[in-house]
């Protein structure tokens, strides 16, 4: 583990491990509790493998009732709980705690109901993102958010992280596609939010839960919106002599009123890595490559393909290729979808960042990264969800070379600081987790963070759910709740009163 500081483990809990495991077995019998260190190793990290920790005990409940009883037990005995879906988080959201129970939702793997008339599906949180689409595609439906880990990542994890994908600008993130949740609070109380109807009643707890990174409650059921698949989709592959021109092309497409299903950009290092890996036919001389996908009725797609081609040419595009078949469209995407493993081939390790920036700041941010690349003597390749401004710089390093991981992390932190500086944010879709936790003050004041932490207190006043994630400093809820006396000033000469 590099320089991450986690909350000091509670010695009493470490000493009481055997008893805790025994107690939990009365709730989740048999294989529902794992406490053999060797077996728990499978849970020691998530997709952010630089950080590892074997948990105190692993619990794998099968019913909402069991989740409720486990949480109530942990709440009563002040035991931290780390919820885990499929463990694909890239920000360490499911990193276990030494003195904490790891609550795996993997057994919640059933699709409970598909309701085409109301255009939704009710699923358990351990169902994978892709499995939802697979269950409804014979009727022409799909579930829109498509994070690149969709084959493995669970819908419960998608809710926790507010997962995105390449179609977000047109079809939204998880938060725009979830209608209802069943969740369990740390006290064991079971709460239902929303349902098959639109808009959660009262305060939008559904929206608050989505993206809360397992700090507010444990999701035990999810109702998602399913959509009819667009009739057709075609893609353009466009090469540019500079990333500024590619960026301008994206702005011009949007200014023309066109919201593409997907708009992805790659820089030269990423183009080369991808091309060498999958031979997608990418133009190697291009400084920036844009893939624009248009979906909808054929008449619309044909019309828009022409308009986008014209816009590309007016921005000095060197290459404009339009997919003539489904195979060709898939080939255009193959390189982009393989960009991460492709970069993995040209470097022993890579570190994937996830800032979002206002699109028009792209040239500035790319230039800044080139400078940092020289400073840290590490290469960087960029893939960019150009439609929504979400940037994924891949920093190339070698973990076996002393100091390189630390340099890569510093480089990454500098990139994220730059993203915030130009009006963007630290994370677009991967979450804060432990990875960006200590950078939160770059974006938020202490007062901003205190307002968020008080929300945490409303859900979990003992700070037992996923502590050490998202917030750089742990504050006790009593301390956060205290109101400072302002001194009872009365006069407001600068406020007109009528």
């Amino acid at each position, binding site marked *: 583990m590099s320089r991450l500081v986690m909350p000091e483990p509670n010695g009493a809990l470490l000493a009481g491990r055997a008893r805790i495991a025994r107690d939990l077995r009365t709730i989740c019998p048999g294989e529902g509790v794992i406490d053999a260190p060797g077996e728990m190793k499978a849970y020691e990290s998530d997709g952010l493998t630089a950080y590892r920790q074997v948990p105190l005990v692993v619990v794998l409940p099968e019913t909402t009732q069991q989740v409720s009883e486990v949480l109530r037990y942990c709440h009563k005995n002040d035991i931290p709980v780390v919820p885990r879906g499929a463990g694909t988080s890239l920000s360490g959201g499911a990193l276990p705690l030494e003195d904490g129970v790891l609550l795996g939702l993997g057994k919640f793997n059933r699709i409970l109901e598909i309701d085409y008339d109301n255009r939704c599906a009710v699923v358990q949180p351990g169902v994978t993102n892709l499995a939802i689409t697979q269950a409804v595609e014979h009727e022409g439906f799909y579930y829109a958010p498509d994070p690149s880990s969709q084959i493995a990542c669970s819908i419960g994890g998608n809710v926790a992280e507010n997962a995105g994908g390449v179609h977000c600008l047109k079809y939204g993130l998880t938060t725009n596609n979830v209608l209802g949740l069943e969740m369990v*609070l740390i006290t064991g109380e079971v709460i239902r939010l929303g349902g*098959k109807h*639109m808009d959660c009643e009262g305060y*939008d707890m559904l*929206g608050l839960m989505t993206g809360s990174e397992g700090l507010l409650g444990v999701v035990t059921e999810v109702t998602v919106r399913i959509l*009819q698949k667009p009739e057709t989709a075609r893609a353009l592959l466009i090469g540019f002599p500079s990333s500024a021109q590619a960026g301008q092309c994206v702005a011009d497409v949007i200014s023309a009123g066109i919201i593409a299903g997907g708009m992805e950009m790659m820089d030269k290092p990423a183009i080369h890595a991808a091309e060498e890996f999958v031979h997608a036919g990418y133009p190697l001389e291009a400084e920036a490559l844009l893939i624009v996908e248009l979906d*909808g009725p054929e*008449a619309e797609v044909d019309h828009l393909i022409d308009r986008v081609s014209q816009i590309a040419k007016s921005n000095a595009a060197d290459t404009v290729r339009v997919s003539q078949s489904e195979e060709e469209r898939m080939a255009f995407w193959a390189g982009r979808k393989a960009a991460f493993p492709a970069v993995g081939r040209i470097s022993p390790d890579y570190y994937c960042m996830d800032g979002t920036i206002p699109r028009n700041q792209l040239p500035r941010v790319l230039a800044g990264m080139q400078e940092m690349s020289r400073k840290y003597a590490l290469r960087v390749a960029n893939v960019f969800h150009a439609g929504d401004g979400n940037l994924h710089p891949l920093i190339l390093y070698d973990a076996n070379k002393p100091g390189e991981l630390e340099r890569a992390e510093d480089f990454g932190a500098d990139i994220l600081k730059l993203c915030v500086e130009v*009006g963007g944010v630290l994370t*677009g879709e991967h979450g804060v987790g432990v990875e960006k936790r200590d950078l939160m003050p770059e974006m938020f004041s202490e007062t901003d963070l205190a307002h968020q932490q008080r929300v945490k207190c409303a859900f979990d006043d003992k700070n037992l759910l996923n502590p050490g994630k998202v917030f750089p400093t742990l504050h006790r809820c009593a301390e956060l709740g205290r109101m400072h006396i302002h001194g009872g000033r009365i006069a407001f000469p600068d406020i007109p009163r009528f």
Partner: protein
Amino acid sequence: MTVFRPESLEHIKDAVAWAADNSTPLEITGSGTKRAVGRTMQTEASLDLSGLAGITLYEPEELVLSAWAGTLRSEAEAALKKNAQQFAFEPPDLSRLLGTEHAGTLAGMTAANLAGPRRIKAGAARDHFLGFHGVSGRGEIFRSGGRVVKNVTGYDLSKVLAGSWGTLAVMSSVTYKVLPAPETQKTVVVAGLDDATATSAMAAAMKSSCEVSGAAHLPAGVASCSAVADISAIGNSATVLRLEGIAPSVEFRKDKLIRILSGFGESAVLEAVPSSDLWTEIRDVHYLASSPDLLVWRISVPPMDGQKVLAAIGQATEVTAFYDWAGGLIWAAVPVSEHGSAEIIRGSAAMTSGHATLIRAPAGLRAALPVFQPQPASLAALSARLKQAFDPKGILNPGRMYP
């Protein structure tokens, strides 16, 4: 009564801090167009955001607009229109229904989490609300979110602020995602369907790849009130389905939708202008505006349940109503009574999931009845703790949502 008209974020902070110190309940308003919505409040001072107005950032090619919270919607919408853009969630203008002069401010639009017919395709205000600056009931300035679409940095506080009716914090500025307005539209009309058949027809349309952006059913009595001649002339119910986009696409989908609906009856087509007029009426609930004495409920249920819920209400009381959101939204007007038909609506066996909000009622009734859907105990307690987290002294619009 003290009225604060802040002209800066600092002013809001001073006013709220003063109210917190003195435990003075504050009524928070944008321009006051929705003051008559919500439970009746006992406040001793008010904070009026209408002086804090103006667009601060609008970058059409970035699809983002930021403005002071008191900015009139008409100002923001005019700026968007100039660039052929819009708030895609189609916020209703409830001024006719509520008897106010205009549609109100961006703060009000956000606090009420408004959404129009396009809700079924594009979401509600909460789905486009990217970030805000404001002051919590603690008298402290804070912010959340940002100006970019994809952002998971920290809790999504924008979501809970949307639809919180000014009970959690006073927003000073808001940032919205905006989208291109469709080039044109057409509406496919099927006449004479009963509510149940209309619900099936709307489901068939929504299940198709026609990208329907509005699906409403106007029972005969409501259709006859339409100012769109082609609708009122039907002399029967009208099931209406809107298609928007570029002309060749709309034309293609119109033909396809007519084929899909052929089993339900013959279709007529409204061209762009009457189509737009019709959806304005539906969005702004014009049909229920003409009888100001009736109580108006807004009921959100699963689309297929809407007609069952309305049938159950119709068994128990006189009701004038129509459906939006493919059957999932019912706007219903009922006669004034002591019970306001609250039990009839919320207690209906057909209403297994969803919520009903009393949007228009005299102050007396709004003091006596739960205006917002009552919540199960655990959720109600959680809501109360959330309110407490933002507003420990209970000074911001106290009691407007829950006692």
